[in-house]
């Protein structure tokens, strides 16, 4: 239904994107049709880059890792076992790519989520306090809070809260058991809640 609504006003190419089933796109991409793989990117590029951004907290790096995710996906199309779970498979690759990058970053003693210019700018308090600005500031807080979670919790929280994945899907993506996921998610929510609590007051109520 959501997909049908989102078709209104979109180009025919975009409509075509939504009319192709994942299985069909995979079969065509495996046969070497570049257009089919582009349609897969059109469909999943946004959620994948959002997920990676939530994991690494940097725009340039998120773009680079999204690129790596889709290149790896292309190279491993023939290894995909269940074509009905394309998005789960893509998120699995994205998770691995992001984690590899984070481990490299840890070795480089870098930190996630605190080097963003926008956050620093907002902290200076120089921009007007309208709703849009509050949302942006809140986004900075959420981003920092995400960056403070450990990797396991961040993956689960992002997939559940932002990507609305089921526990079963998250288990497939992460390779963790569902009880562990529930525990991680509960703890992640508690940590996030603590950090955004000041923003749950006046001005942020909806």
């Amino acid at each position, binding site marked *: 239904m959501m997909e049908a609504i989102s078709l209104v006003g979109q180009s025919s190419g975009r409509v075509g994107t939504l009319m192709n089933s994942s299985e069909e796109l995979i079969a065509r991409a495996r046969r070497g049709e*570049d257009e089919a*793989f*582009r349609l897969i*990117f059109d469909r999943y*590029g*946004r959620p994948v*880059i*959002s997920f990676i*951004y*939530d994991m690494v907290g940097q*725009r340039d790096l*998120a*773009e680079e890792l*999204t*690129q790596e995710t*889709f*290149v790896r996906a*292309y*190279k491993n199309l023939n290894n995909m076992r269940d074509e009905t779970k394309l998005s789960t498979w893509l998120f699995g690759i994205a998770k691995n790519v992001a984690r590899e990058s984070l481990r490299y970053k840890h070795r480089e003693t870098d930190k996630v989520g605190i080097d*963003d210019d*926008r956050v620093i700018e907002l902290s200076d308090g120089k921009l007007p306090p309208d709703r849009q600005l509050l*949302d*942006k500031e*809140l*986004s900075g807080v*959420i*981003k920092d809070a995400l960056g403070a979670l450990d990797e396991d919790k961040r993956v689960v929280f992002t997939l*559940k*809260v*932002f990507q609305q994945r*089921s*526990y079963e899907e998250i288990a497939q993506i992460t390779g963790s058991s569902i009880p562990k996921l*529930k525990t991680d*998610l*509960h703890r992640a*929510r508690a940590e*996030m*809640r603590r950090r*955004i609590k000041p*923003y*749950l007051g006046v001005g*942020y*109520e*909806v």
Partner: protein
Amino acid sequence: MKCEECEVLIEEYADGALDQKSAGPVREHLASCTACTAFHQEWTREQEIYSRYQRDVEVTPLLWSSIEARIKQERGGAREGMLARLRIKLGGLFAGPRFSPAFAGALVVIAIALTVVVMTLLNSKNQRELLARAERNGSAPAASSDDGNPSVEAPTPEVAPKAPETGSTVASNGGGETAPKKVPAAKLVAARPTPDQLVREAEQKYLAAISMLSRDVKRHRSQLDPIMLARFDAALGDIDRTIKDTRRVVNENPGDPIALQYLLAAYSKKVDALREMTAGSEN
């Protein structure tokens, strides 16, 4: 349900991850407990806040362009890698201890000569068979020359089982006459083989030669020295893998002259090896 129990389940309840049986008691508890209801409301506000999270990232056309470029690069790299491996493999076959360069050179000459002889014989045999079949069926052979003389030098794609014959076959006049009619010039132009067809034809010729030599080798295997036989079998295994690999590269890149060259070289090498085995069994 107690508040402690509700706290455990309330997140899953709010996520919609609880089944009806488990969700019922939570719903009932929320209707009667102000503390848990307050927590549920706070949880709902949190979700709304998260839904307003703005990321400083977008999917741009440039991102797809970068992915596309890397895919092409990877594809090219994979192809180059495979060709490089084939070069090493073929190089190994030619330069390995089994065949000295001089002997390998001599074998190449022999293989070419042998291939020509084998194909001539095959063509001659095929022509005879086709003529005999034509006499029986009242139709002309597929690749006779224009003047109706079924010469062995005439192009003979009938070695290839897939080659369509209807294009150049001319039906007899119904009186059992074996000589074919003149094929129109336009048809001859249209039937001029493409490089791909020529390669396929060459491949079929090699396959025919290999088939004939393999039969010969099979008949005389027992006469070969066991150590020599094992070495030949190992060499043939390598060559077969090379043929398989090059065939795959050619299928993926039909117009690639290097890949075609390697494919035909691999077939030639197999003819060489089989010829060597045949010669070994005769000594």
